[in-house]
C-alpha cells in the first residue's frame, strides 16, 4: 500500500510556461454552436494554449526551469536530480530529461531520468523526487512536468481536441532538515488502460503505412491510430469512484482535518468532474482554484500551472496547507498533503 511520509525536504519554488498561441472553444467549428456551449458549460474550458510545430514539451519545461532558477538565484550546477514527467517526449530515446540536463547546464554529476505518466504525473513525480532529495547528500531536485497533448489530439475528434492544452512546469525541491513532512497516497489500476490511450506507434502496434489514416469512429470523432482516444464516461466514473477515498485515506493517515487545508489543487480534468469530486469531499468552493477555463486540461502540468496562475500571492505570502490530487490515464492517481512556507512562484512564462 503506497501511503507514506517523506521528511527533510521542502517544496521551494514553482514556475510554468505555456505557448502564446490561444485557441478558443467558440472558434472550434468542427461542432455546432450548441455543442460548443454545452462543452464549455460542462468542462469549463473557454480557451487553451497550443504549441506550434517547433515547440515541444521539453521547450516549455526548459523555459519554466530557466525562469525558476533565475528567480530562486540557483545555479543549474546545484541540481542533483532532474526528472522529466511527460507522455510527449522529444524522442523514443534518449530520455528527454538527459537532453534537458545538458541544455540547462546541469553538471554531469546530475541524475536524470523520465517518468511516463499523464494526469497523475505531478503527484508521482513529487513522490519520487522528494524521496531522492530527502537522502543525505542531495541538495536540490528539479521536477519538470508537462505535455504537448495537442500533438496527439486529432482536430476532428470532438471528444479530445477541444479539451487539452499544452504546458510545461518546473518545481524545485530542496533538502531541509526538520521541514514539515509531506504525505503521499499513490494508486494504480491497469484495468482502465484502454480508457485513455494512443494505440499506434509503440512496440505493441508498430507505426506502419496505415497508422496515420483517419477513420470515422462515430459522428464528430475522426482519428488515426496515432491519435489519443478518450472514453469520457469511463474516466468520469473512475474519478468519481476513486479520488475521494484516496484523499480521505491520506488525510486520516496524516492525522489532519480537512478543515486545516487552505487549498485543494486538483488535476484540471474537466469542471464538472472536479466539482463533483469537490462536492463529494464537502470542500469549500473558494478554496478550490481552477485554471481550466483559460488553459484547458494540461495533463501533468495542471496542478503546478494552477498554483502559478491562481495561487501566486497566497503561496508567496505565508504558510499554506495544500492538498494536491492528480488522477487519470492508466488509471493512475494519487494525492499529496504538503505545507509550503513563502515559496517562490515565478510569473507565468509565455513563448
Amino acid at each position: 500500500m503506497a501511503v507514506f511520509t517523506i521528511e527533510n525536504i521542502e517544496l521551494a519554488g514553482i514556475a510554468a510556461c505555456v505557448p502564446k498561441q490561444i485557441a478558443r472553444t467558440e472558434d472550434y467549428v468542427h461542432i455546432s454552436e450548441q455543442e460548443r456551449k454545452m462543452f464549455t458549460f460542462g468542462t469549463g474550458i473557454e480557451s487553451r494554449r497550443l504549441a506550434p510545430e517547433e515547440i515541444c514539451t521539453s521547450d516549455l519545461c526548459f523555459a519554466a526551469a530557466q525562469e525558476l532558477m533565475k528567480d530562486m538565484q540557483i545555479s543549474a550546477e546545484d541540481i542533483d536530480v532532474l526528472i522529466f514527467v511527460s507522455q510527449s517526449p522529444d524522442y523514443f530515446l534518449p530520455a528527454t530529461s538527459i537532453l534537458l540536463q545538458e541544455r540547462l547546464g546541469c553538471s554531469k554529476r546530475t541524475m536524470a531520468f523520465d517518468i511516463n505518466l499523464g494526469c497523475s504525473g505531478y503527484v508521482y513525480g513529487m513522490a519520487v523526487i522528494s524521496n531522492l532529495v530527502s537522502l543525505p547528500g542531495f541538495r536540490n531536485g528539479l521536477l519538470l512536468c508537462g505535455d504537448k497533448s495537442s500533438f496527439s489530439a486529432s482536430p476532428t475528434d470532438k471528444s479530445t481536441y477541444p479539451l487539452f492544452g499544452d504546458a510545461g512546469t518546473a518545481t524545485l525541491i530542496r533538502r531541509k532538515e526538520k521541514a514539515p513532512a509531506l504525505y503521499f497516497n499513490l494508486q494504480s489500476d491497469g484495468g482502465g488502460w484502454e480508457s485513455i490511450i494512443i494505440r499506434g506507434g509503440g512496440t505493441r502496434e508498430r507505426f506502419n503505412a496505415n497508422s496515420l489514416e483517419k477513420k470515422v469512429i462515430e459522428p464528430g470523432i475522426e482519428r488515426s491510430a496515432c491519435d489519443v482516444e478518450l472514453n469520457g464516461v469511463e474516466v468520469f466514473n473512475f474519478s468519481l469512484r476513486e479520488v475521494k477515498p484516496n484523499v480521505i485515506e491520506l488525510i486520516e493517515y496524516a492525522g489532519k482535518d480537512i478543515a486545516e487545508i487552505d487549498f485543494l489543487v486538483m488535476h484540471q480534468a474537466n469542471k464538472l468532474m472536479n466539482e463533483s469530486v469537490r462536492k463529494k469531499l464537502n470542500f469549500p468552493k473558494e478554496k478550490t482554484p481552477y485554471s481550466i477555463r483559460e488553459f484547458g486540461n494540461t495533463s501533468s502540468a495542471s496542478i503546478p500551472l494552477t498554483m502559478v496562475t491562481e495561487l501566486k500571492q497566497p503561496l508567496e505570502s505565508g504558510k499554506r496547507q495544500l492538498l494536491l490530487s492528480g488522477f487519470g490515464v492508466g488509471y493512475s492517481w494519487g494525492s499529496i498533503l504538503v505545507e509550503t512556507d513563502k515559496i517562490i512562484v515565478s510569473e507565468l512564462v509565455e513563448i
Partner: protein
Amino acid sequence: MIEIKEFTSLLEAEFEDIQPGTLTPEMHYREITDFSSMHALIIIAFIDHQFDVLLKGEDLKKANTIADLYYIVQEKTKQ
C-alpha cells in the same frame, strides 16, 4: 426514492440548455437536442450526487428512456 416525475424535473434542471417541461419519463434521453457525451457526464454526476449511485458506461448503454435511468437507480439503491 423520489417519484419519477420529480426525478425527471430534477435531471432537466441540470441541463442549462433545455426549456423546462421538455423532458418526460418516456423520452429517449439520447434524443435530447444536440445530445453529446457531456450530457451523459451530467447524468452520471446528477445521479451520483443525488442518490450516491455511480453509473457505468454499460448502465447508460442499457438505458434508453429517462424512466429506464430512474429504474436503474431504483434497483441500485435497493442493493
